[in-house]
């Protein structure tokens, strides 16, 4: 039928057909971007994605618990003793050097959620103790006794000033 030719002659192998298809395709691809990106966290959520902590007035040995993305974060200003203990070993069940877990030896920043079942541990013993099932963490937040198997998570953070901590952004 002549109609197939109508497309065939003008169509498939034709430059115009190719150009139109490419231009159209680019438009369709571009059109998906707003829909897909609209599902990403919105601007107000991202603004909350970081929490600022004022470190002024915290003495060595003092711990503050702050909320970040709905979770508790322990900010501990470690004493010389505590730093020594933390550096002395590589931890227990999940070994890693203390230096890998802190940016400044004096400040330990860890998410205060037990890696076993999610309870919030208390600052006691030589580190933290979780009263739900008995897990224990050292002064670097590393697990030294189960049933937890992983160390307390270190969130991304950085120091925006000598006494200002920003949690949520490396």
């Amino acid at each position, binding site marked *: 039928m002549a109609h197939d030719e*109508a*497309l065939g002659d*003008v169509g498939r192998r034709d430059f*115009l057909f190719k*150009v*139109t298809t490419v*231009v*159209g395709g680019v438009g369709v691809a571009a059109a998906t971007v707003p829909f897909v990106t609209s599902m990403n966290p919105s601007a107000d959520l991202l603004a*909350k994605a970081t929490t600022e902590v004022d470190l002024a007035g915290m003495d060595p040995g003092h711990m503050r618990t702050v909320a970040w993305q709905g979770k508790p974060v322990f900010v501990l200003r470690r004493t010389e003793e505590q730093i020594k203990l933390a550096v002395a070993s590589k931890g227990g069940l999940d070994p890693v050097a203390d230096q890998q877990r802190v940016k400044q030896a004096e400040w330990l920043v860890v998410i205060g959620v037990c890696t076993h079942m999610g309870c919030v541990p208390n600052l006691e013993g030589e580190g933290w103790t979780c009263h739900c099932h008995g897990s224990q963490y050292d002064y670097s937040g590393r697990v030294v006794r189960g049933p937890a198997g992983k160390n307390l998570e270190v969130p991304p953070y950085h120091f925006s000033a000598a006494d200002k901590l920003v949690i949520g952004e490396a």
Partner: protein
Amino acid sequence: MKKQLLALALCCVASLAGANEGVKLEKIQVDPSNPAVKRGVEAFMESCHGCHSLKYIKYQDLVGLGFDKAKVKEWQGDWTIDSPVMGMMPDDAAMASFGTIPPELSLMAKARDGGNNYMYSYLMGYYTGADGVTGNHVFPASKMPDPLGISSATEPAQRAEIAAKARDIVSFLNWASDPHEQERFRLGYYVMGYLLVLTSLLYVMKNRIWARLK
């Protein structure tokens, strides 16, 4: 014929949407640039923030405009950075003084027929009557006192200064009602350009394919 009638109808409805009941509004060309919007923020904080809040603008949005965090902290007072810009006058005090609560302004540019023209004409529309009482040409029933002082400004230079301030405030409030407006226009130019190209290509293709018909 039908197309023209439809177009005419659309224009009628469209112009009616912008029409105002009675008062002639002064047309203002808003300055959407960042410096103008920032000037508007300062003028707003100076002349409007005493009574009016911006429910859908947060202090962090002002930081986003380019203001120094310290400057924003001055306006913030005890509020957190992610809270809306609250007017300084509590509701009960406003009721006592004016008999009404000052409306929040973050959507005012869209909430009135005439939008920016309305707000500008309103700010410039204060006058002092023969009896010494201040009134407003655009909204006679308004309980709001003259915020920029136009009703008592007689010198042309003074009036020009107030007009510039009013324009800045309107530019800011216009931004506040639709922060993505400029982005939308930019996308508009790209989309229209793209569609022009694509539709032209399709037009040529259509003619080529149909030319094959005897």
